[in-house]
């Protein structure tokens, strides 16, 4: 006993010494901060980890870009892995405001109500919520036209499929995801009218094992290209393991599955964050919805959305086609949801030559022809 307790005590003493030394070093750091010029503090709330290789990481790269581009910005306050449960999100946002952040980006749909609630108590703070539909005097809603990039990636998938079955691992049946599925399917059908897109819901944004299982189910059903709306590269990894192809999402997923990933529709938030923070500082920003319910809805032309570099398996011919379509969209001459577009029952939902309004696109709750899957409907 005595022997053991001595060893224990000596470990404690060691720990204490290390701790004290560290405290000494750290103390200096705090003082230095206080002497610096007051910076504009910008806070971020993420649903996932900043290393998730997906949605949250894309936002965090935007945050880092913002810090680099604007020297007067201190964007060091970010909180990751914040659940959408009502108890937690509202508190985290409040605490960011309490810590002196003047601009706060809340980057998941579930933060919408909490953001609105908190904003009421902090009128001098500007809040920006990503992917929702509610705005207020000091709350802006922003998003990107990911459907444009999805459409482009659909072209790639449609050209690549042999079995004419493409698997789509989807998160939740909300308009954002449905719009992505539809745009992707329109791209597929443009180059390959025979192909079908099978959809499986995981009902979660981040659950790599659920996403993997869903992808495997689709592969079993004959899919030879897997794409996804998830926050992790698990579906592409499943495709690679099965020797099949895939299309990523959120960020360039070719590192996670180099043999499978042909390209990925990606987010590039940095430039938008820089422009927005500048505008708010200069007083030129306002929250008025400009695209239906959204304050900002940028597309390919702003570079907020785009495609990651193609993998070696993509032929030049396809690359050229993608570039051609991209220019067509950027020019404004045409957009993805331009008629004629039929729904799953074969009924024409958008008449020939007619373009869907932003309002209609943001409320989209039906699948286009060629999608195999269902959207759970309210009673």
């Amino acid at each position: 006993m005595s022997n053991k307790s001595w060893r224990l005590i000596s470990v404690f003493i060691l720990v204490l010494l290390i701790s004290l030394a560290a405290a000494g070093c750290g103390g200096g750091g705090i003082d230095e901060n206080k002497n610096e010029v007051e910076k504009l503090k910008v806070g971020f709330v993420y649903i996932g980890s900043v290393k998730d290789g997906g949605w949250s990481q894309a936002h965090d790269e935007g945050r880092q870009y913002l810090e680099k581009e604007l020297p007067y910005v201190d964007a060091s306050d970010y909180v990751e892995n914040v659940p959408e449960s009502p108890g937690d999100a509202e508190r985290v946002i409040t605490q960011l405001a309490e810590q002196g952040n003047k601009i706060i980006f809340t980057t998941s749909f579930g933060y919408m109500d909490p953001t609105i609630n908190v904003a009421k108590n902090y009128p001098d703070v500007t809040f920006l919520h990503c992917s929702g539909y509610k705005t207020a005097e000091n709350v802006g809603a922003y998003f990107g036209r990911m459907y444009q990039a999805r459409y482009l990636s659909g072209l790639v998938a449609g050209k690549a499929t042999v079995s004419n079955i493409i698997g789509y691992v989807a998160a939740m049946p909300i308009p954002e995801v449905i719009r992505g599925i539809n745009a992707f399917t329109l791209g597929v059908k443009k180059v390959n009218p025979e192909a079908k897109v099978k959809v499986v819901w995981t009902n979660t944004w981040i659950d790599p094992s659920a996403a993997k299982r869903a992808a495997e189910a689709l592969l079993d059903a004959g899919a030879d290209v897997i794409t996804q709306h998830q926050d992790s590269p698990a579906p592409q990894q499943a495709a690679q393991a099965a020797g099949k192809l895939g299309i990523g999402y959120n960020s360039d997923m070719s590192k996670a599955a180099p043999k499978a990933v042909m390209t990925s529709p990606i987010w590039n938030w940095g430039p938008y964050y820089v422009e927005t923070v500048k505008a708010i500082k200069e007083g030129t920003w306002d929250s008025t919805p400009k695209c239906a319910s959204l304050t900002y809805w940028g597309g390919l032309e702003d570079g907020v959305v785009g495609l990651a570099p193609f993998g070696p398996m993509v032929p030049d011919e396809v690359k050229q086609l993608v570039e051609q379509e991209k220019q067509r969209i950027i020019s404004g001459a045409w957009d993805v949801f331009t008629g004629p577009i039929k729904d799953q029952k074969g009924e024409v939902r958008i008449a020939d030559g007619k373009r869907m309004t932003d309002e209609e696109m943001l409320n989209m709750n039906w699948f286009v022809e060629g999608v195999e899957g269902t959207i759970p409907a309210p009673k």
Partner: protein
Amino acid sequence: MMTVFSGYVIEKRLVPSSTSFVIVPLVSIILALLVGAVFLVLSGHNFWEVYKVMFAGAFGSIYGITETIVKAIPLTITGLGVALAFRMQLWNIGGEGQLYMGAFAATWVALNFSDAEEWWVLPLMITLGMLAGGLWALVPAIPRAIWGVNEIITTLMLNYVAIFWVDYLVYGPWKDPNGYNFPLTAPFSPAAILPVLGHSRIHAGLFFGLFIALLFYIIIYHTRWGYEIRVCGESPDAARYAGININKNILLVMFVSGAVCGLAGMAEVSGIAHRLQHGLSTGYGYTAIIIAWLSRLHPFVIIVVAFLFGALQVGGYIVQTSGIPSSMVAMLQGLLLFFVLGGELLTNYRIARKTPAYSSGDDAS
């Protein structure tokens, strides 16, 4: 008895020493913070700053304290719920599911009587929420009472059923028609929302927790029923000997345990979320088990421990803003739990020199 290393054994203490109740948890927390400090220093963080921010986040401001209380409300109520069952050695691991069923029933009232701006909406939500939680707990209690089916497994499995049932509703039939297809029900009308304290988010659920703690204290220590529960929990043989109907008590205790967890669900939808949604609870029903255990099932201690757990979670998020990744925070929380639970073991067991032979004749292993 298990042998640790030659010459020493870990023995159960007959009666844990009274000073150890206070000292052991305190020492455990200090140890956890010390070990955590080593990890923080190794990963290049200033541990002192981290702890300061964590503490300040939870206790340093009125807002921090109110939020800690908000977090402590569901933890207290579910903690009390499962603790009642634990008293009778009924291992109700199903607090999470019972919470969801309570939330489900309360939401049913809120959605179906959304036009009724009447005083009776909230009482009806409370009643049905508790009833749903209680009935949900009866499902595993009945096979336990009749055939002795292990309730640990059944209550646990029913958690998933309840969670998926709520998911089904919010993704399907109960989805808000104006909610852009998001997995949320329509927001509750003001009549279905619990009143709050001032400008904080502290809602009437706080009083549910305090009231139930008091009620349970009286029941357990001052009523015949509570006496029966204690006898059943300490020694089922003695209970049978004394003519206590154990099966009846299994059903009754599980029902009340589930009803209280159901009330936690009702309070969470009505006080905080104001609608039913996917991911309503962040594992309150599971954390409740640890809280009940650490509190030695004492109703008043549960309130205190739930508050500390609330602080741990509230402080955990805020500390991220000083550059600590959330995984590091989770590790710190894990360390605290590990040490406190380990310390708990020390209050009940002690290390003793092994005697050449055990003096009791019948334990020959």
